[in-house]
């Protein structure tokens, strides 16, 4: 461990280094916004850390803000947006990384942006969406009051190695929390619920207790999870999503923990949103969330549990905050493009991709699709998971298909074996050319569905921003 600045008086050289790091980081962010190069979401942090590697730790430890870190395979961004809305609605100012740039540099950028030149931060809540693999390094620097783990899916195994190894890594992070801190855990995820049974921090579990939702057995082979303790196949009373549900191990008797926040009723509303009844320690709430799907019910329960742990849960205020949400960018985001409609979806693993496909297939009309993936440090190198996506369900509805990204050939191959006719598929790795080619095939009254990984999704959005179809990221 490197020395912590607060342990002793900082030397003038150290103070200068800290100030320089903040100035350089802030300058980089301003330059990035001025030059319109993607909002400069991780570069300010990268620059600041190069000058003072302890810059995040120093800003965090000097701040009186409550600090929450949200991690997990899916739902991080939406859960963060919900938590931020709930906190703001009770008058708490929130500093957060809003753009999904959730690696160490992105997290540091928030601190650099929000701190003044002396390293003081005004916000009442520092809300950080953090990549699973980054938790190990970010938790000791931030020392959060709350860690919230949404779920652990088989997401980007090339980056994380094994699922269980990642669970152990998150567990180690949770176990460093002091007794006054809280871990908010998805009780329906056997891997997450098993985390940190020996942690001194308080644990809060959220989940679903809805008899008429879900299925009896996991839907996909790839969703199968065994008992973390004894490796026996789990028995499910109810499976709500992938391997999330109400489970029990016939081998060792371990079962889903008692839920502190429990969704007891879910109805899809005609407006495309969701109504849910949720029991919380602050009382039973009826909420309307203008986002579709059971995964967003989980995000809502997570946000309410997180808000309770952060002492910002006021039921009436939370209800109005949730009702006023808009989808995060790239989550079935509807974009008007010169008289045409684009529906942009960010897909990054089988679970999120299948959930998105289900919602797209529920919509009427022909399906014009632009599918894109690229290999980058954020998106990963290994796209084997595309073979666990139910693209076979999409192919019969396809009217036109363009594939793009630096891994366009891989996407094309997957779609060919899902049944798409290669002669009618266009492979255009360049994003702008692909977008134009895809739009050219769509009649004015039919939407274009874009299904893209993180980097191509941002690239498409940047092109659309240049054309005036969407506002820039940092105005979101």
């Amino acid at each position, binding site marked *: 461990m490197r020395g912590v600045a607060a342990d002793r008086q900082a030397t003038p050289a150290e103070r200068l280094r800290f100030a320089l790091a903040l100035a350089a980081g802030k300058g980089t962010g301003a330059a990035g916004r001025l030059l319109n190069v993607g909002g400069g979401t991780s570069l300010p942090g990268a620059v600041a850390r190069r000058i003072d590697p302890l810059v995040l730790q120093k800003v965090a430890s000097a701040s009186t803000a409550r600090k929450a870190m949200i991690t997990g395979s899916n739902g991080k961004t939406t859960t963060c947006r919900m938590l931020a809305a709930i906190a703001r609605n009770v008058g708490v100012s929130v500093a957060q990384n809003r753009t999904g740039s959730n690696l160490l540099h992105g997290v540091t950028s928030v601190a650099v942006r929000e701190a003044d030149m002396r390293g003081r931060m005004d916000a009442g809540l520092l809300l950080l969406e953090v990549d699973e693999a980054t938790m190990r390094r970010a938790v000791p620097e931030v020392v959060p009051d709350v860690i919230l783990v949404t779920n652990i899916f*088989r997401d980007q195994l090339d980056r994380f190695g094994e699922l269980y190894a990642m669970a152990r890594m998150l567990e180690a992070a949770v176990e460093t929390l002091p007794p006054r801190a809280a871990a908010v855990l998805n009780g329906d995820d056997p891997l997450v619920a098993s985390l940190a049974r020996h942690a001194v921090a308080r644990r809060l579990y959220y989940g679903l207790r809805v008899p008429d939702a879900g299925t009896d057995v996991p839907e996909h082979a790839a969703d199968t999870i*065994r008992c973390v303790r004894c490796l026996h196949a789990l028995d499910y009373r109810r499976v709500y999503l992938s391997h999330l549900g109400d489970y029990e191990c016939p081998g060792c008797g371990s079962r889903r923990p008692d839920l502190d926040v429990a969704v007891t009723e879910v109805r899809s509303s005609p407006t495309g949103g969701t109504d849910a009844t949720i029991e919380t320690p602050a009382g039973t709430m009826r909420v309307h969330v203008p986002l579709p799907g059971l995964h967003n019910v989980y995000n809502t329960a997570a946000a309410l549990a997180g808000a309770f742990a952060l002492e910002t849960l006021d039921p009436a205020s939370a209800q109005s905050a949730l009702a006023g949400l808009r989808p995060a960018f790239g989550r079935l985001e509807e974009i008007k493009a010169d008289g045409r409609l684009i529906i942009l979806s960010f897909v990054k693993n089988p679970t999120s991709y299948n959930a998105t496909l289900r919602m797209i297939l529920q919509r009427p009309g022909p399906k014009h699709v632009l599918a894109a993936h690229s290999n980058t440090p954020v998106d990963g190198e290994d796209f084997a998971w595309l073979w666990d996506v139910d693209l076979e369900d999409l192919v019969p509805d396809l009217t036109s298909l363009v594939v793009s990204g630096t891994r366009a*050939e891989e996407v094309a191959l997957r779609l060919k074996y899902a049944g798409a006719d290669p002669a009618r598929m266009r492979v255009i790795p360049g994003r702008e050319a692909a977008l134009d080619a895809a739009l050219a095939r769509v009649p004015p009254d039919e939407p274009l569905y874009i299904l893209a990984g993180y980097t191509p999704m941002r690239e498409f959005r940047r092109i659309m921003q240049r054309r005036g179809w969407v506002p820039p990221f940092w105005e979101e």
Partner: protein
Amino acid sequence: MEQAAPRTVRICHLYPKLFSVAGDRGNLRALTSRCAWRGIGYSVDEADVGVVPDFTEADLILLHGGQDTEMRVAARDLGTKAGPLREAIEGGAVVLAVCAGYQLLGKYYAPVGAPPITGTGVLDAITEGGSTRFIGHIAVACDLGGDGQHSLVGFENHSGRTYLGSGATPLGRVITGSGNNGEDGNEGARYRDVYATYLHGPVLPKNPWLTDHLISRALLHRYGQLGAPDSVASLASLADQTESEAHAAALRLACRPAGKWRAVMAAGKQLATGKGTAWTSR
């Protein structure tokens, strides 16, 4: 030439639920699609934990990868399957084994800090756990006889280091990547018609030549020499442009120099930590 009489390949898919971690079902889809496109019939018999399939009725057996946790479950279960599986292999059944499936066909896998896992011993191979993982694109030069040399491309992600004994031959030589152990340049293993590899990705869709090799060997197992194809050349050829492009792209990825960004970061780190330059610290 294609025969008029309908032919069928009987596929046995071992542990489809337990071992389905990295798109492995793509291998099954490649096999069944390329059979169907040629008018070759297929059947798929799934055998998960607790089910012993009739291996004498299988022409092509699939054994995929999983994580260490799931591998222990499979190893326990394989005890009851190992005997008939070995007999089938000695009888010429074709096997594709990937990652953990490969390790389980060997004699043992000894992970770091955990008790060893006993394998079936079909392959003369042992696997030792390593503290680091081999993760990345990989390209392998293979010569299975018949229609000459091919490159096998895909992605590897394993911490096990596998060493072959004299009873097994490597599936190929590593062009770029780590392969069996990162030391001896070998990748995968062959014994009779067992083809074992660390490549997933999944491996077959991007390497149609291997898929077709497995199909033709499976047909040979089913129908024998008489009137059956004994080489890939006798399978009807398919329009493989999409496959060729994906193969070429994967080969480019495997052969590209280390990422520019990674190189810059490494250089920056050396400067920042004052550890000197690469050529003095070596």
